[in-house]
């Protein structure tokens, strides 16, 4: 058995790592996984950079921030597959909840346009929104949604807060709203300080959330272990996307060694049945979090370009070079090489127009056909990457 050390943050989307270890998908590939829980995203990145873990569960935009030179001096890092889509929720404090209800908002937890307009109408001053990291899908979702809902950039302040501190920060008035991965939104509802307004998937149908990130030197010089790890996680994701397995996954994930929370909290996000307000209102959000179906794990280079372009604009860097640099860090070549033998459906191209699929669609694959998951944005936004990429 080859021993691999994996870093992760305790969130429901760490499920593929935990399931790969606990249900034997890793062992089938000859791997013994040592899972190390960390407290900060910066720590995950640094431990990977220093070679103190071999691979990491990481926010999809993080390796892009590194690629653009916006992080510490560490060896090159590549994202080899997505581990999950969605899993985030946008929450508002109780005062905003009351104002939204008074103004007639239905808290349907579905329509990002309606929720955005309602919020715009009841917020007078600056809206302070907590996000988990300066390079995060949560930050991208929040800024996309708020700007499309009529919030000027100066009317929004995005504040970085570690997920376990979100509920406290909301209780103390440090933020008015936040966007965070489960179970931390549910924890805040449970504590009576927040109401959930939207799932991330209401803004972008398939927001890539976590990826498997390795150092480039590891991925390129140790292809057997890299491939074995990718296949184990890909199979764990397939197991996780069977709805009947989500309850079991919540049980395993909730154990003291992983999330260390009551299983009912992990279950909400994993089953897409969320309690959206302390008063007990329940909402169903189908596809709240996805791990596998519809080629969810394929690391489209166009997504690297889309997110890197936005990061570059925010930090005053030229956009097109940033996009091109970022695309080289999403390793569709390694994805094809290592997951083809496992039978993964592979798209013909590695970049595409993002936001073009309003519904799941059957498309030609390397072999035969495959289904791609819907990836539309609530406001019809779409994005064309700078260069078509072949590998």
């Amino acid at each position: 058995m080859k021993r691999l050390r994996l870093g992760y943050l305790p969130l429901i989307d760490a499920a593929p790592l935990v399931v790969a270890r606990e249900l034997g998908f890793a062992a089938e590939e000859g791997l013994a996984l040592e899972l190390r829980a960390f407290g900060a995203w910066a720590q995950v990145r640094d431990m990977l950079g220093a070679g103190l873990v071999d691979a990491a569960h990481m926010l999809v935009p993080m390796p892009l921030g590194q690629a653009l030179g916006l992080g510490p001096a560490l060896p090159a890092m590549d994202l080899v597959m997505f581990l999950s889509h969605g899993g985030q929720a946008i929450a508002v404090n109780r005062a905003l909840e009351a104002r939204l209800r008074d103004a007639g908002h239905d808290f349907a937890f579905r329509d990002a346009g309606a929720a955005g307009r309602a919020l715009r109408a009841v917020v007078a001053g600056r809206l302070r929104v907590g996000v988990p990291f300066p390079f995060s899908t949560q930050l991208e979702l929040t800024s996309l949604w708020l700007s499309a809902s009529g919030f000027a950039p100066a009317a929004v302040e995005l504040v970085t807060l570690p997920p376990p501190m979100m509920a406290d920060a909301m209780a103390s008035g440090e933020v008015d709203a936040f966007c965070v991965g489960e179970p931390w939104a549910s924890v805040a509802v449970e504590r009576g300080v927040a109401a959930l307004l939207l799932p991330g998937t209401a803004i972008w149908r398939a927001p890539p959330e976590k990826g498997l990130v390795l150092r480039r030197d590891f991925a390129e010089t140790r292809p057997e272990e890299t491939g074995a790890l990718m296949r184990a996680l890909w199979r764990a994701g397939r197991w996780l996307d069977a709805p009947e397995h989500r309850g079991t996954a919540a049980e395993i994930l909730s154990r003291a060694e992983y999330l260390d929370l009551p299983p009912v909290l992990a279950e909400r996000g994993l089953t897409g049945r969320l309690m959206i307000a302390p008063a007990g209102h329940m909402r169903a959000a189908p596809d709240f979090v996805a791990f596998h179906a519809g080629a969810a794990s394929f690391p489209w280079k166009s997504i690297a370009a889309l997110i890197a372009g936005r990061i570059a604009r925010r930090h005053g860097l030229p956009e097109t070079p940033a996009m091109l640099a970022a695309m080289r860090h999403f390793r569709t070549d390694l994805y094809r090489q290592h997951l083809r033998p496992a039978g993964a459906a592979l798209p013909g191209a590695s970049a595409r127009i993002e936001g073009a699929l309003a519904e799941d669609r059957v498309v030609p694959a390397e072999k035969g056909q495959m289904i791609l998951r819907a990836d539309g944005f609530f406001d019809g936004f779409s994005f064309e990457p700078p260069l078509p990429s072949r590998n």
Partner: protein
Amino acid sequence: MQQKLVIVVVEPDPDRARPIAEGLRAAGDHDIRIIAEQSGLARQVTELRPDVVLIDIANPSRDILEELALASGPSERPVAVFVDRSDEPLTRAAIEAGISAYVVDGLRPERIKPILDAAIARFNVFQQMRAELAATRAALEERKVIDRAKAILMSARGINEEAAYALLRKTAMDQGKRMAEIAQQLVMAAGLLGR
């Protein structure tokens, strides 16, 4: 004369913050400030206008400093970049010692290095102590579980302590497991059976 550097140490545990501060003072004539209270961290750090910020690598509040490091323009001069980008071995030594450093851009490497070396030495000591403490704690937990398992066996089978211990050890050897694991299983099973 060189201007004093303002070094901020973010550390909630005073027993840990003190020796770090002493180590830093020994490394040069610097103005050392300690932030223990982590709420409003971004504001506290910005107000102190530090040249260097040191924080435990595992501290979740680090992600807040990341934002500060990115947000600061040259004119604002709070925390700007991470450990000197040109010195990768130093960065790695710091990470391995469990420390992360945020350093104002443009601070000369020869001024940063002694500070980091001193901090790394102190943090290394703490890493070791932490590992030892964790090992001691784990051993203590195991002892407790084994004692409970022994007690359960003694009352269930009417045997003495020595025989109970021997039985646990034999079972562990037969199953190729550690005694603490067998004891844990026994305690859990006994709990389920309501004993």
